[in-house]
Every structure is written in C-alpha cells, then in structure tokens.
C-alpha cells in the first residue's frame, strides 16, 4: 500500500494530496479526506504554536497507518501534520485514505484522526489576542474516548 507521512512547517494542498491517491489507478473506488483547521475561538486566539517530537511524530503516525492497514483493505494513505506557528483559518492536519469502497475509507480516516489526537506527539500552545487566554491546550477526555473506540473494535474488513 502507498503511504505518505509528512511532518512539516509548510502548508499543503489538500486537493492535490487527495487526488494523488487516485491518480493513474483503476482499483480505487473511494478517497475520504479530512482537513483540520486552526479556529480563532471567538476572536480570542491569535495563533497556535505547535510543538512536536521530531522523529517520534513520524514514527507514531506510521504505526497508526500500519494499524489501519491491518484493519481495513486500504489502497493508499496520506497523513500530513504541520508544526510551528499557525494562524486562525490555516490548515493544521490532513488525512486521506483510498480504498475500493467508501466504508473502509471513511472508517480508516476517522481512526487515523482519533489516533493523531491522542497518540501523535504534538502539543498546542495558544497565543492569545491578550495574555489572559494563553497557555497549553489540555487533552480532552472526549478524544481519549474516541480513540478507545478503535481498541475494542473487531479487526478486519
């Protein structure tokens, strides 16, 4: 299976990345993609500063891709996660999955996002419009619950 994992400071072109999974192929019937953006939190957030553990970030995402591949019949995966300073409206993260049918593509894309939220070594620091709103984003119990759904799911297509 073709898998792309990139951790980068620069922005990316989600359309081109998603299209790249199907280009020149005749076995792909579905590409599901997700883009995560930086929100301004009602005007209070000036930017996010994303810190990451270089090396482990790529490896941990690759492990998650491997798990997804073991669970669904996938034909391609692309994951991109940015780091550094990101302003409201800018893209942070991208996941796209190609498969023969939509079910596997949707499910694998959702699992990969849930794993990225809870297992990939990235941390968001909020830069506020004023100082009072600043600080490290806290992990959400909801995200842990979303990721845990995949631990006891029946594996296989």
């Amino acid at each position, binding site marked *: 299976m073709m898998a792309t994992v990139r951790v980068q400071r620069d922005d990316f072109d989600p359309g081109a990345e998603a299209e790249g999974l199907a280009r020149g192929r005749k076995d792909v019937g579905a590409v599901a993609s997700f883009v995560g953006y930086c929100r301004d939190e009602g005007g209070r957030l000036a930017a996010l500063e994303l810190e990451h553990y270089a090396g*482990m970030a790529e490896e941990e995402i690759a492990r998650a891709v491997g798990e997804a591949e073991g669970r669904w019949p996938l034909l391609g995966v692309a994951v991109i*996660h940015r780091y550094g300073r990101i302003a409201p409206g800018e893209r942070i993260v991208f996941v796209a999955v190609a498969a023969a049918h939509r079910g596997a593509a949707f499910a694998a894309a959702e699992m990969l996002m849930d794993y990225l939220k*809870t*297992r990939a*070594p990235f941390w968001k620091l909020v830069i506020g419009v004023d100082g009072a709103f600043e600080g490290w984003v806290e992990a959400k119990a909801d995200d842990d619950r979303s990721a845990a759904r995949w631990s006891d799911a029946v594996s296989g297509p």
Partner: protein
Amino acid sequence: MKALYFAWVRERVGKAEEELDPPATVATVGDLIAWLSRRGEGYAHAFDKPLAVRAALDRVHARSDALIAGAKEVAFFPPMTGG
C-alpha cells in the same frame, strides 16, 4: 541516556534535553520520574502529578512500569494535543 522534555514539562524543567546517568536502582520509567523529581524545584514541579506526564522510550510510548535498561532516549511530555 538522553532525556527530552516537551511542552510544559520542558518549561518547568527549564531545558529541552540533557544527558542523564541514573543509578542502577532506577529501573523503570516511574523510578526515573521519582529520581528526577528530587533533582530540583523545576523537576519537582514538572512531575508533581506523575499521572499527568507521559513518557516514551526510544520514541515509543511507555508506561510508568516500563523498564529503562538499554534505552538510549527517554522523553517526558504532557498528554498529546495534536490533530
């Protein structure tokens, strides 16, 4: 072994990385956290809620009972908030 600190763990410890040479009695990730906590105020603050800090050994998530023997790199960080 090399130690790496990220996010507010890094801020509280006051550095991003350092070389550690723990005594042989420090066997697990949890032992290492207890040993580090005694090294000064910043460390004590960083690890004052041991369950709030996650660890990785050689770039793989590790629980507090994981053995550190043979690991070249240990990292400590808050629960992750990527995505």
